[in-house]
């Protein structure tokens, strides 16, 4: 196991490097630059700006400088768009916000999704099952860009219970709507995966044996069925968690949360090279880490899996 983890980490380093190089090449090959605007800058002014940011150097030199900066100083460079801020500032400000609502969305999605799935499987083909499946399909087909404005209309405009947006350091009333909007479709997927895998497990031989032994339903479900039934859900949770904590441009746009999702999209549109690179590296790092974590969890849950 330990060797497996070491090996995965060893692979992660060249993976990150390739990620950085590909992103860099892609960004640089996109037409326009960070200082392209409706009013083109006079040559001298542009030259001064490019010199300040080192953009006048050859591409390979810029890439080397960039990687050296990260490795030696943890410095992801300045933002070209937000001139008072560095990439580190941008991430330090946006990522905790996204992490907060992403984390709560994950908790909600998993707890509600798993419960719904279990209930639906236990009461298979009853009205409870149909109801649970109905909810999860409904949640699945309602994309968050439809969900978000509907929530605002209901809770802000009609009921006047919650503020229509903002973050305010993550006070609870500002988190509720982003969490509902972000978690619903994940919740629905989890419920459906959970339901079908639970059904499969409940029909398997060892559960029949457990029933024959006269074990209580509760014991059968929680002691014997839950763990194996969770495996497919866990496969899904790794990427889902990364998806949630890396944010959503829709959530950031509708609720003005100031998270990193919107920042990522904006940086691409603004050709804010260093911000795109910084966030790409962050997301790459998170994806690799959580995939590793899922693999470890797998081995822990399913004794058959050995690395």
């Amino acid at each position, binding site marked *: 196991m330990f060797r497996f983890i070491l090996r995965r980490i060893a692979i992660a380093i060249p993976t990150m490097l390739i990620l950085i190089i590909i992103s860099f090449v892609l960004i640089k090959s996109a037409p326009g630059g960070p200082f392209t605007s409706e009013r083109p800058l006079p040559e001298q002014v542009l030259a001064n700006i490019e010199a300040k940011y080192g953009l006048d150097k050859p591409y390979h030199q810029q890439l080397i400088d960039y990687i050296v900066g990260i490795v030696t100083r943890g410095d992801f460079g300045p933002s070209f768009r*937000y001139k008072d801020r560095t990439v580190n500032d941008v991430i330090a400000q946006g990522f905790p916000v996204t992490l907060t609502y992403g984390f709560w969305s994950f908790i909600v999605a998993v707890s509600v999704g798993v419960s719904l799935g279990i209930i639906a499987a236990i009461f298979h083909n009853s009205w409870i099952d149909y109801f649970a499946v109905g909810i999860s399909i409904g949640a699945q087909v309602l994309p968050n860009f439809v969900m978000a*404005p509907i929530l605002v209309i209901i809770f802000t405009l009609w009921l006047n219970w919650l503020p229509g947006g903002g973050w305010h350091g993550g006070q609870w009333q500002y988190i509720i709507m982003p969490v509902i909007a972000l978690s619903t479709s994940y919740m629905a997927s989890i419920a459906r995966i959970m339901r079908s895998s639970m059904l499969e497990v409940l029909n398997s031989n060892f559960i029949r044996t457990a029933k024959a032994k006269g074990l209580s339903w509760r014991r059968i479900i929680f002691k014997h069925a839950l763990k194996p039934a969770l495996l497919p859900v866990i496969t899904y949770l790794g990427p889902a968690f990364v998806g949630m904590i890396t944010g959503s441009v829709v959530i950031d746009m509708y609720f003005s949360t100031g998270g990193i999702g919107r920042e990522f999209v904006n940086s691409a549109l603004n050709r804010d090279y260093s911000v795109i690179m910084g966030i790409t590296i962050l997301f790459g790092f998170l994806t690799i880490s959580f995939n590793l974590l899922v693999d470890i969890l797998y081995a822990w849950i399913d004794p058959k899996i050995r690395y």
Partner: protein
Amino acid sequence: MKSVMKILTAALVGTTFLVAPTFAAKVPEGVKLAEDQTFTYRALDEHSSIDPQIVEDVSGSDIIRDLFEGLLNQDANGNLIPGVAESWEASNGNLTYTFKLRKNAKWSNGDPVTAHDFVYAWRRLADPETASPYSWYIELMSLENAKEVLAGEKDPSELGVSAPDDYTLVVNLTAPLPYFAAMTTHASTFPTPQKIIEKYGKEWTKPENIVSNGAYVLTEHVPNERLVRERNPLYWNDAETVIEKVTVLVINDDNTALTRYFAGELDRTEIPSGEYPRLKEEYPDQALSFPRLCSYYYTFNLSDSGPEAFKDKRVRQALSYALDRNIITEQVLKGGQFPAYTFTPAATANFTPPDVEYAKMTQAERDAKAKELMEAAGYNADNPLKFELLYNTSEGHKKIATVAAQMWKQKLGVEATLANQEWKVFLETRSKQDFELARSGWCGDYNEASTFLDLMTTPSGYNDGKFSNAEIDKLMQDARTAADPNANYTKVEEIMAEEMPIIPVYHYTAVFMLDPGLVDSWPVNNVEQNWYSRDLYRVEK
């Protein structure tokens, strides 16, 4: 922008010593002020910076006008009024300007605001080290040695600005600009605190570090979410400030912003496209629409890479005539926009749009004429004109382009295909003349016709269609030193109506919802929309 700027020249030319009345929020007699004197407005995107010498966007400049104060300000009608400078004088045939500063202006840390602060800020703007995207502005102001400092050939200390004493600022110019004083209302010329900048570097604009000299101080900034500024008790004219606290919320989506306006979270927000008529009917006292200094138009590529057909002015005229602007403004945009037959908006100061002939015709007459011209140019049903109309990706531009293409198809049998590109790709394509007909928009940098018409001159860096007309070049050149340049501008517009290098479509309006309590004090007549929170007040409603 290399051009000469002529802002409010009438007020300034030939004067020796100007002392204008000072005023901030002058609340009329009998008006009952509301208990709550806060103002919360919406910004589409996070501003780029609140450093006066670095800022380049409108939303950043709006904040800077509250936090800092330059030599001069604008009033509700866009006229010049004193700021830190109490009076100013042009001498030496407009080559030297002397500003006398008020002695009671203070920084928010209590230090006096002196002429040295301006000298520092202006040198900083020009210094290649600062790498300001607006450093060209100092060259535009024609300061001595500006060009050389920008190029790194001379030290910033050689820039033509000096402080013979703490309260006198002397500026030496290389060109006799009659309107130089008006240029000092621009945010990039505002003073900045040398000691603080040297102490904190790039971090100096953070709320805990910043020191400013405006009517408000920065108290909170959460990037991409909110920025709060509160009344500055040390501001020299604080007694006349009414609004206590100003908050800007970043809300990317127009519709969300409108919802939050109705939820009472905002006092001001833009009205989403097409919603104005409905809102005006339901909320007549809150839905505002007033002219802005902006034009929407289509540019013909007249360079060698452009289509041969467009080199025939009859084709250009026909396309322009056949475009029914009223349908676009009344049926598509519905925000009180004005159909455009000239490039320069009628709202521009001292500019009366000429009665160009095609503007006087009815649309039916224009259509008939367009058909005639198209036939004469050799295009008909058997040999239809084909070209591509390029716009930057946006629902709004798409709607207008679709309607335009449909009109040309129906009336002239023209086959215009639509193409869209993401913003930065589009800019690159357009600036390389890699298009046939392209959408364009231009907002005046200052309130004078040359801010538009200079685009039509041969050397202009913004002349993407590469239109070139010797007569226009000469008229615009002469306008720089003419006592009354407006005759030249009128003539230029007349030539453009004949040559049709662009198809003017409409002139923009500012369309927003404003809390009824603030409507009275909002400067609707300032077409540049340079507003100052200290001039606002909220009336009890």
